[in-house]
């Protein structure tokens, strides 16, 4: 056990024996000690303090440490996508006599958090006062960039900094600028109006989910998908409280352990008897007891388990045919020659009618064939042979037996089969939750197939858009700026070339350009693009909460930034990236904003909650909206004024929350909404299937598209097949990286990493260490607490390697000898983060930026491969 006694040699308790300096006390020495104690105890009567000596109400510990004077409603909209609603309590701190934000109280009426919050929410309160917060704009005077250079910072007014940035932007062509930011309303409009590309760091978080779900279900533009403060790109939530059975593939539960917004629901579901089966190489705390079964699956092989489960469900007829007929393309015919859905002239999918022995449209036919074929018929003057989608799925998975899967995954075959049957039997109130950085997320090159397979399984058992299963987004949204004030003319074309090579991924490019500009960018390729090419001259990071150091192989980006003409960061802190910046602009804290949030994370009930600022942003902090407006008005005023005139008195309205409330008839203004309590919910019962109908493919009766033709356009298959990981172990490079983070950290956010009270918590729980199984440690001659160096196989990281040095923690929580557990987002070097400096290591340094030519072969969405990394571990 690590000592936690501020360095003083302390007695430890081992098996009930108190040991001084690791030696047992002998009878002789005990008698000496007892004698000494006894000498003291005779001063006071013996046994005095075994009885009550203090009357109620008389003890100093019965006085509170502070007095609450205000409770300010807020929505936690930066740490995770749960967006818990709560109150920030403000009061007088007795120690200092000053009024300040002190803690949180829950809002029980919020359907997401239900009165709870998490350690990150609490820590946000204190980060309001972090002494390392950036409060002024900084401008570099030393042109030489790099971690070991003194930038020669001078303070300049933020407005002036923005104006200087605008002047530099005006000297560049729009193809030379990249905006590194999530697709929030302001960034979207700015990039569209300027005609510049946007990429963002949520590739590794949400990318795979987003694109697969989009291609199978939401068919953007989804009228319900909208801007929120935490653009999650999650199209759904899970009804944890009412589900019967959950499968967790990865479900990265160290970090999910910090999501109060889902934890209270999971706990309720568990108390009501939900069964949970977890597949994860790591036994996370969620797998200790909340999960009923845990399998230390071989990393990157979850797809095999899913494919085998699909085979069991299909072979044994455990699917819901009625649901598939109503809500999916399972009966839709696929031309065996072209591999495409067969459609009527007006674009409706065709099915084979068993009654009519011919084709009908999918909505008309009450008794379509789900299997068999090929069915041959004439269509538009040609002979077509086609099979139903479900038949093709059966053929695709026919060889994927549980035994086959067991040989790949190390999950016993009998358990795979049993779990598949149990899951199907417990349907439709079942789900397979996965929320970023999970095995089913963008972690492996084959994760997009896993996501596809998971969606198919959930559809087969009828769990999507069902109470107790997968809940789709409901009927409320926050509008985009362009919806509130439509542009008076067409936006300029986006540059055809993008430094994140999105243009070479038609699937993501098409969605970004034509359907959803906020679609995740290819951040994992951006570094490669900036490094290998010379097109981009200006990089603008919108950092708070998810800066550069959420990125993979940041050292490649750092190298690339050395050659830029302009690098800007908008951030709450001076993180490492500042050493490459020309300007750093101070961003405000999330508790310094008003908010309206649409509760996407648990979307069972249409709901809005509002938040008010706890305080004004201090110093010269500047909001993102203000930056975007200033740049927009200077460079593309026709898009930032209501009539296109560029008249500063006619800037476009930005009261998006207010518009949302007005459109729903809830309130005429945010002020009115907040006066009424800042909360609105429609708690009508969830209507199964309603949202699918409205947003799915094949509208007006929307459906889940199990068979994704789009993948054929890019040389991949329309249904998931087995594919191994992109990399394999080689010699000493045999440790597969599994990445998570502490419940009290998120991304590389200094709001938590720079918190002095959280640092010992981190260290005492070995979060600043790399974890391996004790047997693995024995094999490589490494003991608890040893310093080691981790290196990526140079075959996969030929350029800019940066080995990581860290201490080892030996733990049976790492369920396999062939894995190393890494904790994400630490390892800051900057002296401007006095607590976070040198805390932990940066695991991202081990993960190569992606060569798009390689990625395309494995993943048409371009989003995966973060954990397809093998490292060697040596003492050092």
């Amino acid at each position, binding site marked *: *056990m690590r000592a*936690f006694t*501020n360095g003083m040699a*302390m007695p430890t*308790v081992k*098996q*009930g*024996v*108190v040991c001084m300096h690791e030696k047992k*006390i*002998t*009878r002789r020495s*005990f008698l000496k000690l007892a004698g000494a*104690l006894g000498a*003291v*105890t005779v*001063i*006071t009567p013996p*046994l005095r*303090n*075994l*009885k009550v*000596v*203090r009357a*109620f109400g008389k*003890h100093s*510990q*019965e006085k509170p*440490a*502070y007095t609450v004077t205000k409770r300010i409603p807020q929505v936690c909209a930066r740490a995770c996508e749960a967006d818990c609603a709560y109150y920030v309590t403000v009061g007088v701190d*007795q120690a200092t006599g000053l009024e300040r934000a002190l*803690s949180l109280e*829950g809002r029980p009426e919020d359907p997401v958090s239900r009165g*709870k*919050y*998490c*350690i990150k929410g609490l820590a946000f*309160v204190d980060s309001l006062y972090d002494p390392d917060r950036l409060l002024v704009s900084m401008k570099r005077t030393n042109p030489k960039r790099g971690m070991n250079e003194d930038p020669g910072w001078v303070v300049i007014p933020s407005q002036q900094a923005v104006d200087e940035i605008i002047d530099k932007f005006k000297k560049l062509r729009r193809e030379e600028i990249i905006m590194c930011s999530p697709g929030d309303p302001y960034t979207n409009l700015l990039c569209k109006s300027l005609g510049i590309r946007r990429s963002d760091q949520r590739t590794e978080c949400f990318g795979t989910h987003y694109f697969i779900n989009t291609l199978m279900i939401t068919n953007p533009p989804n009228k319900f998908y909208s801007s929120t403060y935490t653009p999650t790109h999650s199209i759904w939530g899970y009804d944890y409280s009412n589900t019967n059975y959950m499968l967790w593939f990865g479900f990265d*539960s160290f970090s999910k*352990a*910090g999501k*109060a917004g889902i*934890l209270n629901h999971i*706990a309720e579901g568990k108390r009501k008897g939900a069964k949970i089966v977890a597949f994860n190489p790591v036994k996370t*705390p969620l797998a200790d007891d*909340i999960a009923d079964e845990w399998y230390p699956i071989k990393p990157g092989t979850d797809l095999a388990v899913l494919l085998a489960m699909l085979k069991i469900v299909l072979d044994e007829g455990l699917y819901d045919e009625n649901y598939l007929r109503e809500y999916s393309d399972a009966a839709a015919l696929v031309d065996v020659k072209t591999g495409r859905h067969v459609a009527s002239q007006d674009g409706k999918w065709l099915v084979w009618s068993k009654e009519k022995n011919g084709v009908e449209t999918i909505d008309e036919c009450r008794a379509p064939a789900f299997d068999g074929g090929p069915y041959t018929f004439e269509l538009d003057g040609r002979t077509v042979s086609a099979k139903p989608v479900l038949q093709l799925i059966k053929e695709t998975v026919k060889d994927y037996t549980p035994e086959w899967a067991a040989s790949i995954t190390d999950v016993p075959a009998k358990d795979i089969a049993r779990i598949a049957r149990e899951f199907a039997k417990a349907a439709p109130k079942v789900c397979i939750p996965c929320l970023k950085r999970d095995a089913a997320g963008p972690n492996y090159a084959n994760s997009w197939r896993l996501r596809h397979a998971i969606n198919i399984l959930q559809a087969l058992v009828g769990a999507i858009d069902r109470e107790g299963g997968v809940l789709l987004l409901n009927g409320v949204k926050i509008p985009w700026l362009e919806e509130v004030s439509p542009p008076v003319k067409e936006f300029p074309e986006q540059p055809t070339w993008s430094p994140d090579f999105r243009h070479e991924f038609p699937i993501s490019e098409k969605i970004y350009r034509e359907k959803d500009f906020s679609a995740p960018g290819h951040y994992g390729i951006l570094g490669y693009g900036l490094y290998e090419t010379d097109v981009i001259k200006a990089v603008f990071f919108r950092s708070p909460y998810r800066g550069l150091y959420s990125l993979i192989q940041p050292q490649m980006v750092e190298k690339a930034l050395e050659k830029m003409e302009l690098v800007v960061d908008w951030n709450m802190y001076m993180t490492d990236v500042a050493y490459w910046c020309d300007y750093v602009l101070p961003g405000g804290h999330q508790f310094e904003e008003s908010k309206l949030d649409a509760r996407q994370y648990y979307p069972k009930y249409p709901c809005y909650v509002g938040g008010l600022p706890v305080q004004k942003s201090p110093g010269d902090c500047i909001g993102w909206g203000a930056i975007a407006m200033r740049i927009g008005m200077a460079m593309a005023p026709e898009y930032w004024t209501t009539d296109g005139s560029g008249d500063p008195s006619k800037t476009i309205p930005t009261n998006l929350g207010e518009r949302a409330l007005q459109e729903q008839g809830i309130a005429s203004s945010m002020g009115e909404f907040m006066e009424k309590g800042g909360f609105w919910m429609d708690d009508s019962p969830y209507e199964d299937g309603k949202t699918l109908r409205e947003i799915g493919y094949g509208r007006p009766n929307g459906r889940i598209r199990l068979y994704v033709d789009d993948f054929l356009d890019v040389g991949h298959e329309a249904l998931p097949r087995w594919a191994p990981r992109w990399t394999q172990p080689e010699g000493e490079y045999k440790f597969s990286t599994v990445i998570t983070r502490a*419940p*009290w950290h998120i991304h590389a956010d200094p709001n938590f990493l720079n918190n*002095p*009270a*959280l*640092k*010992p*918590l981190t*260290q*005492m729980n*070995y979060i600043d260490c790399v974890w391996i199984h004790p047997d693995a440690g024995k094999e490589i001659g490494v003991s608890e607490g040893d310093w080691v160096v981790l290196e990526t196989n140079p075959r996969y990281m030929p350029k800019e390697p940066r080995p990581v040095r860290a201490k080892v923690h030996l*733990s*049976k*929580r790492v369920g396999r000898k062939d894995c190393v557990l890494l904790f994400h987002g630490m390892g800051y070097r900057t002296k401007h983060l006095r607590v976070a400096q040198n805390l932990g290591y940066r695991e991202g340094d081990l993960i190569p930026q992606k060569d798009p030519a390689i990625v395309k072969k494995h993943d048409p969405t371009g989003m995966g491969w973060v954990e397809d990394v093998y490292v060697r571990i040596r003492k050092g």
Partner: protein
Amino acid sequence: MANYAILVDDRYCIGCNTCFYKCVQENRLHEEASRSLHRTMVFLDQGEEPGKYHHRCMHCENPVCAAVCTTGAMSKSDYGAVLYEPDICIACRSCVLACPYKVPQYDEEAKGIVKCSMCAHRVVQGNIPACVEACPTSALEFGEAKALRAKAEKIAAEEGLVLYGVGTNVMVLTTKEPTSLGYPKAPVVTGKRSVLGEVFASLIDE
């Protein structure tokens, strides 16, 4: 006022340490926490087996810390909490040495002890302790000690769990043997000797 207790159902604990940080904020212990001192903390991986270890004051029915305290700074209240009065503490650290659960932490700078008070300031107002309120999974429960103990014993018997904390006002239900998770071996409360006697007996290397 009733005699209160806290029940920790470790099956629902996911180690997020929201309890730890809520306690820090509630009692304004940021500075102490930055020096590794805490009133409650969940350790994620301390034992031989994967599992969580809740390090917190057990608010013993007959607290040894109070028994050995040379000045009466440690005392048992009539509502269950073992309280600490820093103004009369002389920093002899007898409680640190004596506590079988290794709870009291000595604060070198303040020359005093850091230990949970069961949020006495909230309990006397009729509220529940901050950690109990904050737990996202409601793994912590607060209530009248006898009833809570009976509930804990029933769950332990029905579900095959281990009940740790016999003879205290803080009970922990675990699925594994607590010492394998990092918990100190709890003193056996046989009734033949006082807890103080049990502790002293266990110190001797026979």
